[in-house]
């Protein structure tokens, strides 16, 4: 009897061990398995994997629109997103592991993937597939060419088909809730001082929200790589566009460091004063990104500096669902500068080519031709509409003139998270178009459909727009368009690695700023702390970094 039990135990242990082995083998093979469960009448559907080094939500495996796209194109892609790491860490780990997903968008880590020899060259496929070829002009495609003469990725965004219909400001700004502007009867806010004065006055008059929870006048996010909310306003407040890591003086064509300018010192001094006055959220410097988004979603934060894409997707939907938009909690951007009367360039219109990152097909993909065909197919008008508008009759309707529109019910439904997971499949990091649809009338993206845009805005925001005489978010900011040919410089600084002295300096600068800027804002003696910070900052050798950026700037100008 004992022998039988012993034998059974050994068999079950071995079986469980081998099960573990088989599972990992399946994951290694990855792409074209598991087609039996997906087969419809149309035949086999290929499954690919994709990884994007940005946060995002996974959709359900039985997502309806994804299934429809799979039937039309013959390909289904399982997308995974970044969670709890930086893009560099995630890409570094993937390279170290040697196993790549079929598609990858490594964000800042594309250069590392290229160096590791993980990517498939695009050249023949660009010629073969028309939708891919038309996405960029020939000159733009040249920007993507790497040192060995081939093209390895394409940036999926910022390409406008036909007429531009931009309505949203997708970049950085000082945001403020519409109820604050309404309370003050829509004043003209142009300078940093005016902004904080308004926040102070409103917070003094309205310390709590309707349900009694305290308002937070101003909060700062400085979690890891998102600390641009704290560190790069000096760039904009001086009137420069978003070159990200440096200021480019348009007259001398020289690169300048925005961290050491007078504007920077004045900005941080202002923050220091407001921190001591209690206007700045004291937990700003220890909060995580999740805590920050949760805070914004409660509608208690009156104003902050941030990039639109960092909060808008989650927070706006929550506002809609919770009815907070009816309390005037929506955010509108203000293009403020350090002094009154300066020009600002918070908003830069037009397509900005970012050749430093994009979507690529990896050498682990067993059928690259099918992968490129899929990229070609998702750019076709039919699939593009399925991705962004949804299913006709369910997610949008068509009126007599052929214009797409959404009813209020449809808008509520598409804002719901579980509906998004089970029904909508935007393939949001695969190439997509902005601008006008190929039918010449509708917009490629619902958010840019003019009537749809205005209709979907909450009344409080519409009132605000009317009071200022504008119809879109970029108009609210009122930026001038003077970006040079070199714009944007951040597309180069994002590719820096510690191979070069400039890259080492850049990483060190980041570490020092992370450590010192919070201390500077919280300091009792600002001037003393600021000079300490400047001393430590100079040990990072920022000259190396600026020298390297200058070389790149000269290269871009001379092209």
């Amino acid at each position: 009897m004992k022998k039988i039990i012993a034998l059974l135990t050994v068999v079950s242990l071995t079986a469980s061990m081998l099960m573990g082995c088989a599972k990992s083998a399946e994951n290694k093979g990855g792409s074209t398995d598991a087609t039996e469960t997906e087969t419809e009448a149309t035949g086999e559907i290929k499954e690919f994997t994709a990884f994007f080094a940005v946060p995002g939500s996974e959709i359900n495996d039985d997502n309806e629109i994804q299934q429809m796209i799979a039937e039309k194109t013959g390909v289904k892609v399982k997308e995974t997103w970044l969670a709890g790491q930086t893009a560099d860490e995630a890409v570094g780990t993937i390279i170290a592991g040697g196993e790549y997903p079929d598609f990858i968008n490594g964000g800042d880590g594309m250069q590392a993937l290229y160096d590791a020899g993980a990517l498939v060259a695009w050249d023949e496929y660009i010629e073969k597939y028309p939708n891919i070829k038309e996405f960029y002009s020939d000159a733009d495609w040249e920007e993507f060419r790497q040192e060995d003469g081939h093209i390895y990725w394409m940036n999926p965004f910022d390409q406008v088909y036909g007429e531009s219909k931009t309505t949203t400001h997708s970049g950085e700004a000082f945001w403020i809730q519409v109820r604050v502007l309404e309370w003050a009867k829509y004043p003209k806010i142009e300078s940093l001082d005016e902004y904080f004065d308004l926040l102070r006055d409103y917070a003094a008059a309205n310390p709590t929200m309707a349900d009694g929870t305290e308002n937070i006048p101003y909060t700062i996010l400085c979690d890891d790589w998102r600390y641009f909310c704290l560190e790069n306003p000096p760039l904009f407040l001086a009137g420069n566009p978003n070159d990200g890591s440096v200021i480019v003086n348009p007259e001398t064509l020289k690169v300048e460091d925005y961290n050491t300018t007078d504007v920077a010192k004045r900005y941080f001094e202002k923050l220091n004063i407001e921190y001591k006055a209690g206007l700045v959220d004291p937990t700003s410097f220890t909060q995580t990104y999740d805590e920050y988004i949760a805070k914004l979603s409660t509608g208690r934060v009156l104003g902050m500096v941030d990039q639109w894409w960092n909060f808008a997707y989650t927070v706006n939907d929550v506002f809609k669902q919770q009815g907070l938009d009816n309390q005037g909690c929506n955010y509108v951007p203000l293009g403020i500068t350090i002094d009154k009367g300066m020009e600002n360039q918070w908003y830069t219109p037009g397509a900005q080519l970012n050749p430093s990152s994009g979507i690529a097909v990896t050498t682990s993909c067993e059928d690259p031709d099918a992968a490129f065909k899929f990229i070609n197919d998702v750019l076709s008008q039919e699939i593009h509409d399925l991705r962004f508008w949804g299913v006709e009759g369910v997610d949008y309707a068509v009126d007599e003139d052929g214009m797409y529109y959404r009813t209020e019910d449809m808008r509520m439904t598409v804002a719901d998270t579980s509906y998004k997971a089970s029904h909508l499949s935007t393939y949001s990091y695969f190439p997509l178009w902005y601008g006008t649809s190929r039918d010449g009338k509708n917009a490629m993206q619902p958010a840019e459909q003019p009537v749809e845009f205005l209709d979907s805005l909450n009344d409080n925001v519409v009132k605000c727009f009317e009071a200022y005489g504008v119809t879109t978010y970029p108009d609210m900011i009122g930026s001038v368009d003077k970006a040079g040919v070199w714009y944007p410089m951040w597309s180069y600084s994002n590719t820096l690695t510690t191979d070069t002295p400039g890259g080492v300096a850049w990483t060190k600068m980041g570490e020092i700023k992370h450590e010192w800027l919070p201390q500077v804002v919280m300091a009792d003696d600002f001037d003393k702390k600021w000079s300490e910070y400047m001393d430590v900052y100079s040990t990072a050798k920022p000259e190396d970094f600026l020298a390297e950026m200058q070389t790149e700037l000269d290269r871009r100008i001379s092209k």
Partner: protein
Amino acid sequence: MDSKYNIKEIKRQYVLLIWSAIFVVYGFVFYYLPLGGWIMAFQNYKPKTGLLHSKFIGLDKFKFLFEDDTFIRVVRNTLAMGVLNLVTSFVMAIVFAILLNEVRNKFFKKPIQTISYLPHFLSMIIVTGILHDALSANGIVNEILVNLNFIARPIDFFAHKEFFWPIVAFTNLWKETGWNAIIYLAAISAIDPTLYEAASIDGAGRWQKIKHITLPGIKATIIILLLMNVGNVLNAGFEIQYLLGNGLVKGVADTIDIYVLKWGVSQSDFSLGTAAGMFKSVVSITLIVIANVIARRTSEERLY
């Protein structure tokens, strides 16, 4: 002449030899063979050129490490947190085991022990999430302190450098004490009960029994475990510091592992990461050797 290594002996113990052979092969393949990868630390390693063809740069990476203020600081942090963790977890595990052993009521003893090692199975993410919330400005710790009038305004514990190392030690303790105490409890239960009876006859109280019987009885276990953990002092951790750290406490929170992540993996600079890892291994081995020598000189116990 009575050699143990003759054929007859081998034939008699062939089963044991086969068993050991499996583990020797396993150990060789997974622990010693990968050491060949240490050559990465002396090369400018790129995945494209691989181990055999990457450029040889000698000690450049090590020079970079030791000239870098950040690395020195990071080593200091790791050592500090490692030693703090070692001392506190050691003391607490022994104290907890002894105290638990003294519980007479069997009805409470088992459940307490089970509950005590449950946190071991929680992932660090959950533990740090709870801790981050509890210690935040409007968390429960501050609420209690303010309501009991110990402090006037809430303290943001994660904004001050002084608190970070104790918080790390506390997190580790809370998670691992119960689990670490298991071995000591087992060792205590192996002590001959007649010794306790003899001591009672001689008039020993509870505390004296602990001092003269329990502690000497588990001395061997304590020393062996201490020796094993001394080598781990540089593995003070990655998870707690990564999850609880922020810009303000960066100077005391970053460990060698986080440095390797930031400067090694994130930059695809695998050579640097390997160099730092090698440094850790060398230091750990040195520490174990020293500790073992001390143990051999002062008692009968030793690791090897």
